[in-house]
């Protein structure tokens, strides 16, 4: 499929990367030649210099054959006009990135279906939502929800004294490690494997667990964590993400403090966020953080625009005793670093946006997709169709692609966590954990 991406920023670059690797024909349009040079030298995509909102530029980018137009510049208005400039036709999906909260207000004219936009994506809000999900299950480094929350994937660090530690997975079996809970991946020293029954779990491992909603407290317990709900949250930075995050926290009745460095921005946020206490100060000012009781916080979320500031602020908060620390990290190189430094979870606007976009790009059998922070592994929700070679055979014999595992099957209103003896049926949704190399084979195994 031909994909036109307008805007070669962080979001555009990352999505282009993913789509090119999945054998799509990607054309990136941007006004900045130096940015395009960078893209051309790193990715297998075509580049075109010009204003993406101009019909002639879009035509030169091959709009008439395109199946997807992604307008993802950092300016909402440009993205909207770009979608308006491309005539609507069957077979073309037009997506606009719109971040300004005002456009999502009640009675806003910007809706899917207006301005020639089929789909709106909001990376900042996606990120806030992701951080908020992490907050709700305090100990998790990753949370992905499926089937409206009936099934969740959790990334968890195995803590000292965890019941699961130093044991083979098979021995945790039936009694303890019941049918509603499955360890789909283990990450150790930068390597991710899909475990078998004989794999052993150690303290310090990072495990990915797929569980039915009711089993989540048990998943936390097995890895040595307690299930606690956050009540007091401190946000650092005055970014758009902070706004969305504070709004979510307010709506759920959590006590929220936001520390904002820029005075004007602090005033703006204080006016918009009624029930959030907004402070003006340096987010790495230890004295200020302590005065405001960072040690007593259930969670600290660093959301400034600078990775380095976020990491330092998170370290300060962690040291002071904040229970959970979530750090916004833009540069993917910093993600493992953040983990080594002992920060609980990292979130990336790029990945959040890419996940949101890819969810819609991979249409057909793929219903939902999430990319994991640490290893680029993906969690896919796939519809089982009659054409699939997997139907009707026990999973152990079906020849499921290597590097992938079915973590859960959503069948009607019930959730089955499968063993090798379970088989997929037509109409099921299979929730599959796949390492990067296995994503292609998995999607081919579930044709539309």
């Amino acid at each position, binding site marked *: 499929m031909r994909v036109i991406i307008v805007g070669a920023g962080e979001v555009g670059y990352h999505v282009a990367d993913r789509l090119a690797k999945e054998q799509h024909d990607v054309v990136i349009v941007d006004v900045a030649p130096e940015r395009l040079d960078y893209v051309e030298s790193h990715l297998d995509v075509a580049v075109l210099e010009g204003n993406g909102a101009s019909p002639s530029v879009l035509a030169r980018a091959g709009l008439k054959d395109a199946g997807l137009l992604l307008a993802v510049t950092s300016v909402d208005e440009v993205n909207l006009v770009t979608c308006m400039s491309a005539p609507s036709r069957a077979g073309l999906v037009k997506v606009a990135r719109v971040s300004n909260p005002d456009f999502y207000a009640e009675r806003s004219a910007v809706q899917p279906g207006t301005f020639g936009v089929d789909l709106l994506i909001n990376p900042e809000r996606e990120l806030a939502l992701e951080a908020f999900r992490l907050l709700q299950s305090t100990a998790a480094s990753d949370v992905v929800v499926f089937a409206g929350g009936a099934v969740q994937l959790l990334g968890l660090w195995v803590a000292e004294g965890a019941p699961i530690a130093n044991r083979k997975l098979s021995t945790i079996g039936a009694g303890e490690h019941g049918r509603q809970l499955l360890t789909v991946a283990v990450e150790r020293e930068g390597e991710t494997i899909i475990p078998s029954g004989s794999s052993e779990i150690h303290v310090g491992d990072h495990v990915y667990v797929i569980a039915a909603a009711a089993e989540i407290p048990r998943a936390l317990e097995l890895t040595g964590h307690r299930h606690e709900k956050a009540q007091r949250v401190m946000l650092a930075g005055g970014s758009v993400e902070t706004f969305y995050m504070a709004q979510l926290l307010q709506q759920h009745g959590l006590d929220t403090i936001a520390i904002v460095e820029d005075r004007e921005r602090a005033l703006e946020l204080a006016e918009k966020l009624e029930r959030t*206490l907004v402070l003006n*100060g340096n987010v790495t000012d230890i004295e200020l953080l302590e005065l405001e009781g960072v040690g007593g916080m259930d969670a600290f979320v660093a959301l400034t625009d600078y990775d380095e500031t976020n990491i330092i602020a998170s370290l300060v908060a962690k040291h002071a005793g904040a229970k959970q620390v979530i750090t916004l990290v833009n540069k993917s190189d910093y993600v493992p670093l953040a983990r080594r430094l002992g920060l609980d979870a990292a979130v990336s606007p790029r990945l959040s946006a890419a996940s949101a976009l890819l969810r819609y790009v991979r249409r057909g059998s793929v219903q939902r997709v999430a990319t994991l922070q640490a290893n680029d592994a993906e969690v896919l929700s796939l519809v089982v169709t009659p054409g699939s070679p997997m139907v009707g055979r026990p999973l152990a014999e079906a020849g499921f692609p290597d590097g992938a595992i079915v973590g859960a099957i959503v069948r009607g209103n019930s959730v089955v966590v499968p063993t090798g003896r379970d088989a997929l049926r037509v109409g099921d949704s299979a929730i599959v954990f796949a390492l990067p190399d296995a994503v292609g084979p998995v999607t081919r195994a579930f044709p539309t």
Partner: protein
Amino acid sequence: MNPLEVLRVIGVLLVATAAAMVPSVALAVPEGLLAGWLGAAVLVGGAGAVAWIATPRIGGINAREGVVIVGLGWVAVVIAGSLPFIFTGVAPSVSAALFESVSGFTTTGATVFAVIEDLPPSALMWRSMSHWIGGMGIIVLGVAILPLLGVGGAQLFRAEVPGITADRLAPRIVTTARLLWGVYVFLTGLLVVLYMAFGMSPFEAINHAMSTLATGGFSTRTASLGAFSPAIQWITVFFMFAAGVNFTLHYRMLTGRWNAWFRDAEWRWYLASTVGVSLAAFAALWVEQGNGSLDLLRHAVFNVVSIHSTTGFATADFALWPSVAQVLLLGLMFVGAMGGSTGGGFKVVRAAVVTEHTRGEIMKVLHPRAIVVTRLGRTAVRSEVVLNVLAFLGMYVATHAAGTIALAALGSDLVTAMSAALAAMSSIGPGLAGVGPAANYGHLGDPALLVLSALMLLGRLEFYTLLVLFLPGVWMRAGGRR
């Protein structure tokens, strides 16, 4: 500053004042007071007409001229309004006549007359009429019916309408002024009909309706509303409360937004304090008298609403209430009604802003780096507005102190001096002790009456409009030498 333009507009206002005397002139015929009334009306109308017609129309009005017109206009109108009391010999002195006129136009309702029933109907009508004109504002009336005030109308409007903002109901200020007066006339008419339906004579119904909607307080009876049935008193409670509400809310409500009152943050404060203080007063009276009754509740609610809306009617002598209830009433005298209403006082909206701002300051002690936004409901109040409100608070307190000192120096006791100064500034009418609902202001002497007249005007025009007249800069020509 263009004196001719100011003179011309004041001329227009005087002609309007003379026109408002027409009903009294008609009533004066059977009383044998025609000469005095006709003399006053012709003098005021004639002087106004000369000023209006003889001065050339030059152009628009700038901000400074607007303030001067409102300030001087009010002075001219209250002097004109005192003439009938002097010419007919109804008032005991010139100062008393001026006091009665100022009390009327500022919707205060304080009187020098001990026995109201002795006054001729023409004078009673004029007292109510002056309330009614002063309530919505003679300048706003001028803007509404006389488009000749031109583009400067907005300046005048803002200088006369009380409160921190003058909301526009329509993009054009003339339309806004007309809509407000329309609502005012409609509600007054509605109340006249209700009063008559519940047994008032047409004359008394018209007088009381005008007095109620203006949050005035002049009655045709010495016993005020206490002379009428409980049903009439309950109706009055509702309309006094309504008159203390921002009239733009009434307009919105009457045009179909049924929840306009409830959606307004200032209105919720107003309701909360009305209900809270009413219940507190009721409880205090209950404890004192040993038993509660519906009559006692009626007295509590009626007098609290009367004070809060700055009307000044009374059904009971609240100067004899338990002292806690009296103190609460003093508090309400200070706060007064809502901005944009016909009532006076510090205004609920300003009290709310001060309260919220103070809460923010306490927050800052706990969180020194906190950015605290003062909010009214969900809307943030700009810090310039907060500062303006705080300055206004200072002005209010200082003026009240000066007034109290002056009255005490002229021989009043402490409670009388304090409450009289506050009742005058907040355009209430009755105060406590020597000027309570059962007493009147006649015994204070002419100098005290003049002090109170000044306080009433200052309070009604919210200080600035009147005080700028004493700044030499105001009288300089704009644009340098010509």
